[in-house]
Each structure stands twice: as structure tokens, then as C-alpha cells.
């Protein structure tokens, strides 16, 4: 490359000029160090402080309070928060996958340059800019009170005034998070669909396939890795969000003292099934659990928030790593 061939520092100028440029380089390298070091520090802190608290009991048991001499001792683990987050991720995917992928299919395959496509794009851009707590506000006001309250009045009137769907729950939190990650999913899917060459579509159409057959059999399979990458990135974002679930159904201290089974495995299975048991149940989730154990509860030992932070960080960074592996594999194996 012609540009890189020229050395960063030239020897043909005056000493003062060379010092000046050298100082600029020091600042450039320094800024890199100033950014990289805290990133390493945060990751290392969470790993080193959270690492010791991770053991089988921490991952496989519900939190429990035992009483010794009149004083409550907080112990057990964070299993319900882990399963709650997994349930929440599953629910979010179930909503965001069809809406997001079909939205992208509309943009690239159906709407193309129509005016409505422009409106849709504008909507997505704006959706991406909305702060997460505003999603929470919307989920709380609309999903929980308007939709949930409406469902209750229609189908669960006999249980009123105690709400069924008219209170925070898994379904509403998942719907809120699905809205939140929709821009990520649509944008990534759109990019993946656009990278499928037009000749693929033309070949399929020339063979007499209809538009939907072309989309289903040719375009979507070719774009699959890109779509999956976008989905995973979206879901990892959803797994780490706290503000939107704060108001739509996350809870603390569920499943405490659920000692029904005697064998450890039976106990674990029982607890996994228990929480959250219905679509409208409240649930525990890792980010919310971290927030509460860190800020609200004085009697909870430090290893709980640090351990929760580590599990959450590993989950999110693991998902991101999977996404980038899929992306680079797909790029390497691409045949067009």
C-alpha cells in the first residue's frame, strides 16, 4: 500500500517538528491504552471477584434464607434468575424473530423503493434511538395496564380485582424487550438479505418459482447466517437490559425456600419448572437480580452480586462471541 509505505515519522524535517509529531503519536497510542486498560480492568474485576462465588450450589439452587439464632442468613444460589433470563430470552426471540425477519423481507423483497418502505425505515431509525427506560414506561403503561387490564376484564373477570395479566409478567417483559431489539434484528436481517445477489433471485424466478417460493427457498437460506448473527446480538442485548424489565415483571426473592424434593437433582428440576410457571408470572432475571442485590438488600453477602455479574457477563459475551464466529465462518464459506 502506497500510504503505509511512507513512514509515520520522517527523518527529513527539523528536530522540533519531529518532536512535535512524535508527541502526537504518543497521544494517539496513549488514548488507545486509556481505552483498552479500563475494559480489561472491568472484565478482570468481575471475573476475579465473581469467580470464587461460582460453584455448583450457586448455579443450581434458589436463594434461601435460613434462620440461626433469630438472624436471617442469606444463602443458596441464583438458579431462578438464570432460568428466568433464559425464559425471557426465549420469549423475546419468539416475538422478535418473525416480526423482525418479515420486516426485513418486506424492505428488501416486497416494498423495495416504495414510500411505505421509507416510512418503515424512519420508524426503525426512531425506534433504535428510544432510551430503554422509555420502552419500560411504554411496556408498563400499555402492555401491562392497557392490554393486560383489557385481557383481565374480558377473560379473567372472576378473579378481579386481583390481576392476572394486568400486572407485570414474563409475556409483557418479553414483548417490551422484543420491541427494544427489533431495530437490531431488522437492520441485521436487511443487510444479510441485501448481500444475496440479485442473480440468485432472477435464476429462481426464471425457473418459474413465485416470489414467496424464491424468498423461502433461495433468499432466506442464503441470508441465514447474517440473520442468525443479528438475532443473537439482539438477544444478548435483551439479556443484559434492566430498565425495561424493572417495570414489566422482574421480581426479587421468588422461589425462596421451595424445598419439596429431597434429591439435589429433583430439587433443581422442580425449581426450574416452577419459575416462572405461567406466561403472566413474575420472574427473576440476572440483571435485575444484580441490581437488587447490589443496591437494595443490606443483608445479602457480596458474593451474590459479584457472582451474578459474572454469570450475566459470561452469558452476554458468550452470545456475542458465538455471533461473531457465525459471522466470520459465513464470510469465509460464502460461495458468491
Amino acid at each position, binding site marked *: 500500500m502506497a500510504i503505509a509505505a511512507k513512514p509515520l515519522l520522517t527523518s527529513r524535517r527539523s528536530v522540533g517538528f519531529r518532536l512535535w509529531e512524535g508527541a502526537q503519536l504518543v497521544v494517539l497510542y496513549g488514548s488507545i491504552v486509556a481505552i483498552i486498560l479500563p475494559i480489561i480492568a472491568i472484565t478482570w474485576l468481575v471475573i476475579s471477584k465473581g469467580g470464587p462465588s461460582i460453584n455448583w450450589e450457586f448455579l443450581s439452587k434458589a436463594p434461601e434464607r435460613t434462620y440461626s439464632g433469630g438472624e436471617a442468613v442469606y444463602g443458596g444460589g441464583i438458579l431462578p434468575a438464570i432460568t428466568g433470563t433464559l425464559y425471557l430470552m426465549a420469549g423475546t426471540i419468539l416475538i422478535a424473530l418473525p416480526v423482525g425477519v418479515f420486516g426485513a423481507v418486506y424492505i428488501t423483497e416486497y416494498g423495495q423503493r416504495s414510500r411505505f418502505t421509507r416510512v418503515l425505515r424512519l420508524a426503525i431509525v426512531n425506534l433504535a434511538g428510544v432510551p430503554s427506560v422509555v420502552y419500560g414506561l411504554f411496556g408498563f403503561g400499555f402492555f401491562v395496564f392497557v392490554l393486560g387490564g383489557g385481557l383481565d376484564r374480558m377473560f379473567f373477570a372472576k378473579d378481579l380485582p386481583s390481576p392476572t395479566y394486568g400486572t407485570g409478567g414474563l409475556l409483557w417483559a418479553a414483548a417490551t424487550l422484543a420491541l427494544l431489539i427489533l431495530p437490531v434484528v431488522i437492520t441485521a436481517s436487511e443487510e444479510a438479505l441485501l448481500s444475496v445477489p440479485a442473480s440468485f433471485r432472477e435464476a429462481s424466478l426464471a425457473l418459474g418459482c413465485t416470489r414467496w417460493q424464491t424468498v423461502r427457498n433461495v433468499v432466506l437460506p442464503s441470508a441465514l447466517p447474517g440473520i442468525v448473527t443479528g438475532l443473537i446480538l439482539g438477544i444478548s442485548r435483551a439479556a443484559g437490559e434492566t430498565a425495561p424489565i424493572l417495570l414489566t415483571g422482574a421480581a426479587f426473592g421468588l422461589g425462596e425456600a421451595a424445598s419439596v424434593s429431597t434429591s439435589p437433582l429433583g430439587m433443581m428440576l422442580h425449581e426450574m419448572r416452577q419459575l416462572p410457571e405461567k406466561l403472566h408470572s413474575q420472574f427473576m432475571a440476572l440483571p435485575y437480580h444484580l441490581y437488587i442485590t447490589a443496591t437494595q438488600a443490606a443483608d445479602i453477602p457480596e458474593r451474590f*452480586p459479584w457472582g451474578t455479574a459474572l454469570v450475566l457477563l459470561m452469558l452476554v459475551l458468550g452470545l456475542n462471541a458465538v455471533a461473531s464466529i457465525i459471522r466470520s465462518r459465513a464470510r469465509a464459506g460464502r460461495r458468491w
Partner: protein
Amino acid sequence: MAAESTIESGTEGALRIQASQARKHGRAISDRVMEWLIRGNAGLVVLSVVLIFAFLIKESLPFFQKYGVGSLLSGRVWEPVGEPEVYGALSMIAGTLLTTVVAILLALPFGVLCAVFMSEIAPPRLKGVLKSTVEILAGIPSVVIGFVGMTIVAPLMQDRLHLLTGLTAFTGSALLAFMALPTIISISEDALHAVPRDFRQASLALGATRLQTIWKSVVPAAGRGIVAAMMLGVGRAVGETMTVLMVTGNARNVPTNFFTKDLSENSLFQSVRTLTATIAAEMGEVARGSDHYHALFALGAVLFLITFVINSIADYALNRGRR
């Protein structure tokens, strides 16, 4: 913003012929069903965005009708449980402004320098390493950063700067700056990368050094992209909730005092509360339909409006830059 569709008009023509033939042969039922599903879904997405917007307005209107916009924006006192209730959000608006402005002042130089380094100086392999490190940062959930800030950074600041508490606006700004970095770096890097190579070659051919080329021709050419990066970073900082909720101390002060030598008297080193933190902290306790409930929606509407303006500026800068 996003690229135009790549499907050429030839394909569109083929599709039209295909559709008319398919209709004749009666093969098109699944096709037509899917088409309606897909179109309906697109409508649903647009509808939900309109719905969010409309719902925010609808739920905040009762508040504005009763208390007025002026008292919300200029009132210094926020007493939702007082007798009578008072809703002045000036302290929170100022808190959001203060933390955001300081965060961007901290993040912008580092972010742009990092982007310059990645795009113009780093060899490909180092660039790859830097990119994935920045991606790690982008992936860390805000509640984890808030937690580390609360337990590690805040006590450190309190200790080193001899403050009464480490939970200050400045701690929040520092962490927000950190969180805005990935946005600033990746968008500026894209903008720098998009500068044509001719610019660099012409400058070098005139005898400029590589660093002169970077500062005098590449960075100015990427100016609009860098402005967009800054605005998107601002948007990120304004909307961030958990971190500021956990580290800024949440005292409802109107920050006014920035020029004292005594740091613990300086507003930057005192507690503040932001718009986002107020919504997150108080929403759990309100009764639906109460004035407090509508007041929090009004804060949400203010927040939405701020981020909407910021993102529109970013979008405008990006799209104008492309033409």
C-alpha cells in the same frame, strides 16, 4: 441511512410478470397469503412505533393540562408525595444535561483518537484486536458497569478527591463516557474509512507527512461522520438508565456551582438525579392514573423528545455526508 435496495428494476419486471402468470395458474394462494402477512407485519412495525409515540403523549397530556409545561421545565422542586404535590423537573433535566455534556467532553477526544488510530495507523491485525475489544465493551450490560462503578470507582473517587461521597455527577459522567465510546469509535471509524484514498495520496504527494495528512485532510473530510458519532454518543448517554441510577447518588440538586476550588462544594462532584433514573426509581411505586404516574410519563415524553432531536441531527449529518 441504510442502503437502497439492490434488486434491479429487471427483477421487478420479472416479478410482475411472474405474479400475473401465477395468478392465472391459480398457484398463488400461498404466495398471496405470505405477501399479505409480510405487508401486514411491516404495517405492524410502523404501527408500534406510532403507538409508543402516541401513548407517551396520551399519558402525559393529563399532566400538562393540569400543571402546564412551564412548571415542569422550570420548577426546582419535585415533591410527588407532598401536600400539595409539586412537579418541577429542572433538577433532573439539569442532571441529565450535566452528566451527558461532561461524558461527551471526556469521551469524544479519546473516541476520535482511537478511531483515527484504528483507521489510519494500526496494522490490520492490531486493528482487529482493538475492534473486538471495543465490541466487548459494547456488550457489557449497563447494570454491570453501574455495579462496578458503585463498588469500585465511586469509593476510589471519594478517597482520591477527598469528597463526602463518591456517588457524584462526575462518577456518572466518567462511566457514561466509557459506555458511549463504542458508539463514537465505530461510527467515526466508519466515517474515516469512507474517505477516498485519493485524499490521502494527494496530500502525501504534496509532501505532507502522514500525521499532517491525517489531521489536515482525512479527519476534516470525515467531519460530518464524526459529528454524527458524537450525537449518537450523546443519545446513548442521555438514555442510559441503570448506570446513572446506581452511581450518581440520586439527590435532586440543581447543579449551579462549577467554579469553586473546593471540590466537595463543586456541583460536578455532588449527587445529581437524571430523567432516566427518576422514571426507573419512581415508576414502581405509583398508582395508575395518579398525577405522579402522568408526571413520569411527561418526563418520558421530554426524554423521548430530547433523544429524537439528537438522533435526527445524527441522521441528517450521516445522510448529508453521504451525498
